[in-house]
């Protein structure tokens, strides 16, 4: 197993992710360098902030092309986290319409809970209910599938087969997506204590 590259595009808590990856016993490299990304065995795309800024930053650094080559063409396993999941969609409606990477047939829209009194941003610990099995959930019993979320937008998948897990907040929303060598979570594994550490460990060991 090689290094785990944590994509640094100027947005996102790369240090927290790196600390968690290190705690799992792997070798984190926070980088935007195409060679270091190519040398890594696994990639993590973090992200906190606005969708439009994220896409601008990714494109400006040429990372959209690097990720396409490493992940879509070469099949390297990648974990997207929070905004790093949302940018995989085709389009977001946050502060105007923005094009994402388009790896999933999905859009990103504001969370509107159907139950009155529920607050947005969706902030805190909530259950992620898997809709199918996946290696990243190995060893995590239902009682441990509670993770930390903090977001105002959610990803709507047009293909139900892409959804991996859902959360409830006055409606059912996408908590995780997965296809082939790509998996992504709306919640923050690096902020979810032992459940998150287990999920990260599972990702790092994953050979899709």
């Amino acid at each position, binding site marked *: 197993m090689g290094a785990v590259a944590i994509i640094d595009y100027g947005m996102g808590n790369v*240090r927290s992710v790196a600390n968690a990856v290190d705690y799992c016993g792997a070798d984190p490299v926070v980088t935007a360098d195409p060679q270091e990304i190519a040398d890594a065995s696994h990639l993590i795309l973090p992200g*906190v902030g606005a969708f439009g800024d994220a896409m601008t930053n990714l494109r400006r650094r040429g990372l959209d092309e690097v990720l396409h080559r490493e992940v879509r063409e070469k099949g390297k396993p990648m974990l997207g986290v929070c905004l790093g999941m949302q940018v995989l969609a085709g389009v977001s409606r946050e502060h105007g319409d923005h094009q994402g990477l388009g790896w999933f047939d999905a859009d990103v829209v504001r969370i509107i809970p159907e139950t009155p009194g529920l607050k*947005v*941003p969706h902030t*805190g610990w909530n259950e992620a209910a898997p809709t199918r099995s996946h290696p990243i959930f190995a060893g995590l019993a239902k009682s441990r599938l509670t993770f930390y979320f903090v977001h105002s937008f959610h990803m709507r998948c047009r293909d139900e087969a892409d959804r991996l897990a859902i959360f409830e907040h006055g409606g059912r929303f996408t908590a995780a997506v997965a296809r082939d060598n790509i998996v992504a979570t709306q919640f923050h594994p690096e902020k979810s204590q032992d459940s998150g550490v287990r999920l990260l460990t599972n990702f790092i060991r994953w050979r899709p």
Partner: protein
Amino acid sequence: MLKKRIIPKFLLRDGRLVKYVRFFDNERMAGNPVSTAKVYNDYGVDELIILDIAATGDPDGASRRATIDVIERISREIFMPFTVGGGVATPEDVNALLRAGADKVAVNTAAVRRPDFVKQTARIFGDQCVTVSIDYRQVGRGVHAVYIDGGREKTALDPLEWALRMQDNHCGEILLSSIDRDGVMEGYDLEMIERLNERLDIPLIVSGGAGDLRHCIDAFDAGASAIAISSLFLFTDHSPIKLRSHLFNLGVNVRAGADSHN
């Protein structure tokens, strides 16, 4: 379903934990912040709030540097969200704290002195990164006032009106602290919690007053998304885990936490 949160709150002065009653009285030393944070992480608490109380008006920046050092060391030890506040006045301050490892930054005095600061910060770093901290006192019958500068300076702002304005400025959360109830351990200001919960669309964390289980249950029932707790954990034998476990067993929607130990 989203769980209610119990958030231990630390006060830092020059890199050490301290505690007061009603913001100013009865200062006590309360231990090492890094080891305490690590213990809380191992216990599986929901989140942490760390306020640097020396920071507003810290002339040579020594207190601020001590705080950054503590934050960096804490972020190496814990895998849960934590919010840092105290004297945050510029985007550079916010950036320094986020780079040191904080997930959210609490803004108090600066938000009042510069009304567009919150909007600016939310635009650069994301709504979720900005918690607006509001300290208040009752100043007359049914009349309350927001206080800034660590509770030293009274403003003409009403806490609810101010919270709504800050919500409009795109902060992610409100941290509401009752100065009158701080450290007294006689319960939260339930009426104020209900007033805010009714009108706010964003989450509300309340602070000031937890003395027993009943106080916590009442605060959640009044609509708080989270309760910040200080005295109860530092000066009684309640632990965050016992508290959450009792609340869970009483049917309150908190994390079960049975698996939180390694």
